[in-house]
C-alpha cells in the first residue's frame, strides 16, 4: 500500500483535528477522516470496515459510553447508530470537536 502518499495527504489536513479515541465521554464532534490516525498511519482494511459499519465523513459522532474496566472499548453514536469499538480502532477516525467542547482525555 502506498503509505508514503497517504502520510503526505494526512499531514496536510490534520490541523485542528483530534481522534475519536481521544474524545472524552459526552463530547460531540464531526467526523472528518476515516481510516487514518493523527500521526498519519493508514489501514485500508480497517478503513473499509469502519466505513461499512457506518462511520462516514461529515457525520456527527458522540462518545456515549466507556468501558467500566480501564475505559476501553468505547461506545459511540453516529446518527442513530450505536457502535462499540476499541480505542485502537477509534484512533483511525479523525474528528473535529464542536468548538465549545474542549478536547481532553489523552489516549492512554
Amino acid at each position: 500500500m502506498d503509505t508514503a502518499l497517504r502520510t503526505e495527504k494526512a499531514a496536510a489536513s490534520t490541523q485542528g483535528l483530534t481522534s475519536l479515541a481521544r474524545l472524552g465521554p459526552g463530547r460531540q464532534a464531526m467526523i472528518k477522516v476515516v481510516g487514518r490516525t493523527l500521526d498519519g498511519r493508514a489501514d485500508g482494511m480497517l478503513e473499509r470496515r469502519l466505513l461499512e459499519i457506518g462511520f462516514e465523513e461529515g457525520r456527527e459522532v458522540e462518545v456515549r459510553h466507556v468501558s467500566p474496566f480501564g475505559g476501553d472499548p468505547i461506545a459511540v453514536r453516529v446518527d442513530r447508530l450505536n457502535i462499540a469499538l476499541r480505542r485502537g480502532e477509534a484512533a483511525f477516525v479523525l474528528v473535529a470537536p464542536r468548538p465549545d467542547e474542549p478536547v481532553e482525555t489523552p489516549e492512554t
Partner: protein
Amino acid sequence: MSAATLRLALVGVPNCGKSALFNALTGTRQKTGNYPGVTVERRWGHFVTGDGRQIDVVDLPGTYSLDPASPDQEVTRDVLLGRQAGESSPDAILCVVDATNLRVHLRFALELKQLGYPIIVALNMMDLARHHGIEIDVERLARELGAPVVPTVAVRRSGLEELLRRLPSELFDIAVRPTAAIDAGHKPRSVEDVRALQEEARRIARAALVHEGASFRLTKAIDEVVLHRVAGPIILFGLLFLMFQAVFAWAEVPMDWIDSGVVWLQAATVSALPEGWLASLISDGVLAGVGSVIVFLPQILILFAFVLVLEQSGYMVRAAFLMDRLMAGVGLNGRAFIPLLSSFACAIPGIMAARAIDTPRDRLTTILIAPLMTCSARLPVYTLIIAAFIPNTTVGPGIGLQGLVMFGLYLAGIVSALGVAAVLKLTVTRGLSQPFLMELPKYQIPVLRDVALGLVDRARIFLRRAGTIILISMLVIWVLASFPPPPPDATEAAIRYSFAGTIGRALNVVFAPIGFTWEISIALIPGLAAREVAVAALGTVYALSGSEDAVVDSLVATLQGAWSLPTALAFLAWYVFAPQCLSTLAVAKRETNSWRWPLFMFGYLFALAYIAAGATYWIAKFVT
C-alpha cells in the same frame, strides 16, 4: 408454464431482522446443518406461497459487505458468487433492509444489486421506524434503487404476503427464467468503491426519507443504565447469577423425571428380557449411557433460553462490550464471553457458539479453552467427592467449607482457562490482534416464536449427538467392561477381568504416581464417553468388588474407606482439567475441521490434569 422451485437467498446486514423474517417465512419447516467443508451453520427451508408457488429459501450469514471479515461472511460471498462447494447459486436475492438505518443498509443493497441477481428488498422494522417518526417514501426508494421494495415487520409477520406476491412471476417459470449474470470475477472492493457506494446510498436515503425521525430514546435510556460504569457490571453479574441459579435450580425437577424415566426403562428391560448379555447391553450400556447424557437436556435448554433471550433483546452485545477489556487481557475478544459462558452448562454448545467470533484465531483459542469451564457433567463427580471427603463445617458466617471447595473448583477452571488463553495467544494462535468493531443494536422485546425455534434446534442437535456418538461410545465401553466374562472362580469384581479392567490396571502404571488407585483408572475409561459416567463406573467397580455394603447409594461411605484424602483431592484436581469427553473432542473436530486441534486439546488437557492431580496429591500427602 413449466413451474420451477425458486431458490431465494436471504441476505442482509447483521441486526436487520433477517433471521426473524426467515423464521416468519419458514416456521417449523426450517432446517439447520452445516455447509460442506466449513463449519458455518446453514439454515434453509422450503415453503409454498398462497398461490401455490414453491420456494426454497436459504438464510445467508449477515454481513456488511461482500468482502468478508469472518468465515460466516465468506460463505455469504461464496454462495452469491456461485463458489460455495455443494451449493448452487440462488435464483434471486431477498435483501433485508432496516428501515431505521437506511444509510448503512442501502449501501450493502446497492453492492448486492451489482451482482446482477433479480433482487427484492424487504424494508424491515417499519413499525419501529414509524414509531420514531421516520417516514419513508417507499415508491421513491424503489424507483431510486431500481428494485421492488416491500415494507415488512418480520416479528409480526406483516408484509410477508405482499413480499411473496411481488416476486416476479417469470422467476418461477423455468422456460423463461432469466439467468442471473453474476459477476464471477468479483474482486475485493477498494476503499474508493466503498466510498462511492456509500455516497450513492446516502443520496438515495436522502431522497427517500420524508422525515429523519427522532433518536431511539428507550435504547438510549436502557444503555445509560446497563452500560453505566458502576451499575453496568453489577447488572451483568446479577444476570449471570440468576442464570446459574436457574440452570441448577429450575432444571432439578425435569432432570429427576428423566432420571426416573431411565431407571424405569432399565427395570422394564431387565424384567422383559432374559438375564444375560442382551439385557445388560440395553440396560447398562445403552440406557445408562445415553440416559446419563440426556439428563442434561433441561439444563441446556434453560441456559439456551437465557442466551437466546439475551441475544434477541440486544443485551448480549452489551455484555460483550462490558467484558471486552477483561477478555482482551488474555488476548481474547469480548465476543468470546458468550461461548465461554455457555460452556458452564456444556462445552458442546459453547464450542458451537464460538461461530459468532469473527476472527479465526480468536475462535480457535475460544474453542480450545471452552472445556476448562466447569461443565455441568463434572458436577456429579464434584458432589460425590466433596460429600465424601470435605467436612460439612462452616468457615465463616453462612460460608460452608463444602460450598467453598466447589466454588474453588469453578474458579480454578476459569483462572486456568484465562492462563491457557494467554499462553496460546503467545504461541499456537499467535497473530495480530483483530479489530473489535460492532454495532450495539436497538433493544427489542424477544419474540417467543423465535426463541422457541432456537430451542428446538439446540435440542435437536444435542439429542442427535446423544443418539449417535455417545450411543456408539457407550456400546464400545460396555463391550470393554463386560468381556471377557470373569472366570467361574472369580474372587474380585467382574470388571477386573474384562478388557476395561486390563486396560485400567495397565493405565495404573501411569496414574499410580499421582495417587490414583486401579479402581479409579478403570473408572476413567467409561468416563471417556461422558465425565459423569465415571460416578456410575466407580459404583460398578466397588459394588462388584465383593464388599457387600458397597452399593451405589453408599458410595460416599465406600470411598471414605477406600481412598486417602490426598487421592480424593487429586481426583478433584484431575476433574478440573479432565480431557475425557468424546463428544467435546468430536464437536471440536467438526468445528475446526481437522483432527489436529481436538488432539492438541486432548494433549494439553491431559498434561494439565496430570500435573494438577500430581501436584495436589504430593502436596496434600506432605501436609497431612
